[in-house]
Structure formats: C-alpha cells, structure tokens
C-alpha cells in the first residue's frame, strides 16, 4: 500500500487523497495579454523531476503541499501551505 503523510492526520493510504496538480503562480489577469493568460491556464511543466504539488485529504478536507519525485513516486516531504513557504 502506498502511504502519504497528511500534515494533520498523519500517514494514510494514498487512496484517501486527491491529487490537485502542481503549485503554480497565477499572473495578475489584467497585467498579461491573452496569449500569456493561455500559457498560464493550459501549459504545464511535464518534465520529470521533484515537484511541489497540491494534495487533498478527502475524508477530512485538508489541502496541503507535497514535494514528490514524479519519476520514482517518492514523497520527499509534506507540509501545510502558508505564505512564505511558497
């Protein structure tokens, strides 16, 4: 069984979680043109490396961040989001 550590609930089976995609910065909508906005909306970094991702513990409703190596599925660390650690 694959485990993921929720910062609130501890180590749980990964089936209890929902993947929320990579952590990304949204540009100010008024400051960019349509093409740049399209780049933000659609384009992703699909390159294999360690990534910062949003994960959601479905049972308890906790969103948090996991750093995960998307090549070998090793979770490096998990923590709650707060301004400053982004």
């Amino acid at each position, binding site marked *: 069984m694959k485990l993921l550590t929720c910062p609130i609930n501890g180590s749980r089976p990964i089936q209890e979680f*929902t*993947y929320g995609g990579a952590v990304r910065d949204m540009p100010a909508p008024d400051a960019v043109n349509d093409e740049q906005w399209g780049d933000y909306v659609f*384009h*992703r970094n699909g390159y294999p490396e360690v990534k910062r991702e949003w994960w959601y513990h479905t049972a308890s409703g906790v969103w948090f961040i996991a750093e995960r190596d998307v090549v070998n*599925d090793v979770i490096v660390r998990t923590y709650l989001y707060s301004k400053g650690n982004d």
Partner: protein
Amino acid sequence: MPYQLLRFAMRKKYPEPRMFRSPDKLRDEYDVVIIGGGGHGLATAYYLAKNHGITDVAVLDQGYIGGGGTGRNTAIIRSNYLTEQGVAFYQRSVNLYADLSRELDFNLFYTKRGHYTLAHSDASMRTMRWRAEVNKHVGVDSEVVGPGFIKKEIPQIDLQCGGHQPPIVGALYHPPGAIARHDAVAWTYARGADRHGVEIHQKTKVTGIEVRDHAVAGVHTDKGFVKARKVLSAVAGWTTHITKMIDLHTPLVIHPLQALVTEPLKPWLDAIVVSGSLHVYMSQSTRGEVVGGASLDPYELISMRSTLDFAESMAGYFVDLFPCLSNVKIMRQWAGLCDMTPDFSPIMGTTPIRGFYIDAGWGTYGFKATPVCGETLAHTIAHNEEHKLIRLFTLARFGRFELVGEKGAASVGH
C-alpha cells in the same frame, strides 16, 4: 511438436528474412530525422517515402522499435468520437487500417469486432446519443442500442453488474470497432520504410536539438551530431524531455496507463466492451486472452510501474460485468506512459521553430491513429504546412483558447 517447427528452432542461422536493415553507423546528415520509432514515427517515414518521394530519412529510437506505447496498448481501433473534426480524422485512420495488411503485405490480424460503450445512467445515455448523431452525420456507423440487444449479442454479460454497480441501461454500438496486432504495425511500417531506403537506428537516443536562427539544424545523439533540415519529434510519453531541450511550452502531463491479460480461454467474447462509469474495458485477443484496461492512474508519474491496486480493481469490475470470469487467472500486467492534453486531443504539426514538427498528446488513444498520423505528418513535413485533417490540432490552439473537446469520448483509456 511439428517437425518443421523443431527444425526452424534448431537452425544455426535465423532462417527468416529480417524485417529491416540495422545500419551500424549514423550518417552525418539526413533530409529528415524522426525522433521515436513507435508506430507514428515509422508510419511517417513510410508515407514520406511513398507519398512524397522523400527517402533521405533516419528514424532514431533510444530503445527498440515498438517498445513504447505502440507495443503496450490494447490495440483498439474505432472512430466513434465526439467532435466532427475528431470523427473525420479517426475515420480516415480506420479506412487506412482496413487495407493495411494488403498495402504492407503482412497479416496484421485486423479484425472487426463491434465496439460497445455501456451506459449505466441517463446522463451517459445522453452522451451516447450525442456521439451516435455526430457519427451518423459524418457517415460513421454508430447507433444507440438497448439492454435487450446487448444481452442478445453478448450473452455472458450481467446487465445488473452483480448488483454492485448501477445496471446497464444501454450502449453506443459501433460495429466497425476493431483490434489489430500492434507489434506487427510497427514492424511492417519499418519494413515498408526500409524498402524505400529509410534508415532505422535503434539504441540511438536524442540528447539535444540544435537550433540556429529559429530554425532546426540537427540533433545531438549519444552517437554524435546529425545534421538535418527537418526534425519530427514523435516520442509520445517522452515528449517533455524533448520540449525541455528547446524550451517549448506545452500542456503535456504524463500519467501511466495500466493493462492486463488473463490466461488464454476458448473464444467466447467477440465484442469489445467498454464501461466509462466502471472505468474498465476489455476484449478477447486472437490468442484467447482477455485483455483489459482502465482509466489513467490518478496522478502524474513518469514511470512504467504496475500496481496491485489496478489488478484488484480490474478483477472486481471484470467479474461485475462477466461473472463467468471469476475463476480465471490474471497472467500479466504492465503499464505505458501517456502524454495527456486538457482536451483529450493530440498536438500535431509545426512549431515556432522552423523545420521542427511535433506529434504528441497521444495519451491513451494513439494506436488507432497510427496510419492517419503517418499520412498527415508526412504531408505536413513535405509541404511545411499542416494537412487539413490536423489543422485544429496545432500547439497554437491553446494560446487561442480553441480546444477540441474529446473528453467525453476518450476518457477511458483506449
């Protein structure tokens, strides 16, 4: 054991002719370099030579040909998509497939089975009706059928799904749905291209793309630099390595897709059966194995590992649909890499780099498109302009917010 077979096995020298040559050295320069010896790359090489007389072509593969998605898929061929453009494109591919064994002079075991997409709710019946009407409008054979018809054609099915799932209320029936032998598709396109003079280099990995003045100048490989006027990247689940080399932004995210086969059984299941609600699909191969697959793994992962979760959940759904499978053993399971786009449509054609073309975003549905990809990409490379069947699939569509929504017809991986 037949005596002939024994004699064949004992020969010192391999008695069959090789499908294609293995040149031991790369030349310094080619007109066209194709990265990726999957079905798409090899078919493109074949049609470049055959339809456009361009034979100074090298296909490079980091492993062996057909070792990517081409040799890992569940080999379903169909054209019952949701958008008019999608249907027209896939229908061209089905037409090419139907004649491909003759054209390439090799039995590809292309067999029409009939394809059923089961509906377990009113909402999915609505999508089935929508797909049937779009299909019929462009001349593709699809219709909505009720539970009685399904039970008559597939008597082993349990319409109540063992009471564990919502019952089957109907299906989209697509009689031309077919399967073919996927390895043979790669080998015979390779042979066809080779006969026209194309060089196929296995175990040759592209490590960099040389770009000068916004135009492609060649590729770096682990066997040295090769000059080329035109380069196609047809590497499906490896595309994000290539796009990183040239800093090309795409929406591609890679997920694994898993599949399995059971032990071989006497032929009993003629149809291809898909359930979007149960996230499962299956068919029986010519060898008798029941081949099955599911939806994508739920999160990004660039690895071809298999999971017990998958085998367990598939086994459950298999038995929900076909109780007769309850004592059958699973023989193998495996996974492949799927390069996904947000609209479940591919990315094909020109890029901002002159002479550099891309074929990607094939996700879970690219095997059926192999012939039409080859044909349209060859045209695109020869004329430096997208073939009309693929104009909507350009990378630039995302910047223009012009997506080609095929999710409703493509979300269970096949």
